[in-house]
């Protein structure tokens, strides 16, 4: 879980762990990248708007370290689906969650994403 807002990271990590997920969280994208090894994660939950690097770029870098990692993006921006399609042409990137959402909604979305091959 990578988001530059420490409060959000704390709440999401806590909530997801309470729901049985195992979560590593980072507010610094570079630290997150540093921690990835092949097979270490099923899924990356990435905020799109972060200082220094956006979620898409970060995901591309993550894939160079672990080709099999899935992704779900988070954003607080008012982003239209078509806009997201333009920014993330790769169908593998087509998971977008809009803030604010409850931890239950987040967990359901992540479950669904993990069910998908």
């Amino acid at each position, binding site marked *: 879980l990578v988001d530059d807002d420490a409060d959000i990271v704390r709440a999401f990590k806590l909530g997801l762990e*309470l729901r*049985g997920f195992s979560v590593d969280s980072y507010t610094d994208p570079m630290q997150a990248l540093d921690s990835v090894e092949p097979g270490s994660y099923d899924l990356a939950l990435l905020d799109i708007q972060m200082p220094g690097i956006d979620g898409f770029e970060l995901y591309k870098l993550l894939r160079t370290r672990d080709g099999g990692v899935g992704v779900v993006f988070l954003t607080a921006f008012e982003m239209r689906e078509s806009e997201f399609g333009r920014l993330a042409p790769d169908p593998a990137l087509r998971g977008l969650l809009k803030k604010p959402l409850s931890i*239950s909604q987040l967990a359901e979305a992540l479950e669904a994403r993990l069910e998908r091959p």
Partner: protein
Amino acid sequence: MKSRVTSRRYNSVLLIIVIILVAGSLLFASYEYSNSVSNGIQAASIDSANSGAQIEVTEMTHILVNQLEVVGKNLQVLAASASVQGGNVSGALPLFISAQNTTSSFTTDYSWIAANGALLIAWNNTGAVPAAAGVNLTSRPYFVAVKQSGAPYFGDVILSLHLVPEVVVAWPVFNQTEVGAHAVRTFEGIVVASIAVLTLGSYLKSQLPSATSSGLGAIDTQGDILYSGNHSQFGLNVFGPQVQSGLPPSFAPSFDSFLHLSLEGGSGIYDLDYNGLRASIAYQAVDINATDNQTKPTFFGVLYVLTVDVLAADQAASINSLRLFFAVSVALIGGSGVIIALVVLNWNSRLDRIIKRRTAELVAANDELAEQAQAQKDLINIAAHELRTPAQSILANSELLKDALSPSSSPTSQYPSTTTSSGIQRVPLTPRPDMSEGDVKDLVDSTFRNAIRLQKITNNLLEVARIDTKTVKIELESFELNEKIESVVDDFGKIAEAEGPKGKDVQVVFEPRSKALLVRADRIKAYEVLSNLITNAIRHSNAGGKVTVSAELSGDFALVRVRDEGTGIDKSLLPRLFEKFATNAGTGLGLFISKSYVEAMGGRIWADNNDATGATGATFSFTLPIAR
């Protein structure tokens, strides 16, 4: 666009050419028309002059012929009278006196010449004319002619016995006797009427209508002048050197051939055009029927009437001026047309330029509107982001706290170890059956902090909306700025708690540099600006850093500086530092609001990096007007 301009220019040139052509043809047509009309008028006036001359010449000829025929009748009566037939001179004298009396204004004298040439009677207006001595009258041309032909004689100009030019009318006197079956005629002499040329001319002149301006001329069959406007020419021959030398050489040949033609008899007209003088000369032969049984009239001479075409000349002058007037008018009209066209075209192109300029302005305004619309969209997007971020924390935190307060519905029980359809078995690596007290405290703190942040963003957004719609209320009052700054710096503790990451331990100090700074400003807005700048400074300070606030008098303003020792401002950010959402730090609206407030209060705000002085960090400065 360029081709359109070219074609418009081409059209303009075409239009001018068309106008010039139309004006030119109008000019030409009008000139031709006035030309033909004036020529017509001139011709008509010449015709009228001609016909006037013809009428006059006919009339004068008729008068002359009539007069000569009267003389002829007198002579006929005298020749046939019993006294003359009987050679009775004393008996005949009264007849001669009577004859002279009837034509006294015309004839010089009547005389009777015997067959042997003896002058039997000669009577003029004053009485008997004595016979010229030593002259044989039988050799006089009229005597010779009458004796030879036995017919009446209407002669050419001759010199009288007194050397006066005259014309002579003579009648034979026959003594008719019956000899057997034949009538025998014996020539007994002639009766004669002589008419001095001068008298003839005077008579003719007196017969002219008094109003006429016409000139009169008469010649005999030999071309000797019977009458002319120039009396010294009386009796001279028109073909003689004295008359011919008076004619202009260029004009003489045609005039002479005209004279020759007129001497052939009949009547006609001659158009004289000499040195701008137009004249008509009408001529008519003077044909006399001397006796009732005469088969062919006697050709006595030719009468001429010269009419100067004064009217025609006058009309020609006015027609010429009319023609000029027409030409000038049409030229003026054509010129005006061209000028109007040029003015219209010039106006057109000016209009075109204006339209282009307006269009450019509209395009610029449109671009600006589009920019504003985009800015509005960006603002909404960023505002949404700024509102959702704390809302996210509050939502997630409160959800977690709620779950924690009702353990029965703890999500942990809903998420046992599962095996996903993809075969991944997920077992919680660090199971968290419950939240620690520390977690709860963190969540509560985080919720409070984000609620504060939400409140602040909401207020800022509302304030930005007020600024954008220019409905911010600034209430100016005079207050002491140093005191105000001191109280803000004291409040800094609270600011640090709300904004600063823990453990930064940033020190905020105030250095007043002027004793008292009484400013005129909005107290609350000034507080906002100051606290905003100090908060920013703390946020960008490193741990253990120092923020220095100073205030001093600078001209008519109080100058406040907030200086930090942090990382400084990104150079690329400097130009738009005070715009909305220029930074991600805080709400991104604080500097925009601060700038709006300072400027609304009559001051200025700016920011510099400290690198010019070799130090780290940045300094934000603003001014407020000193109260007067």
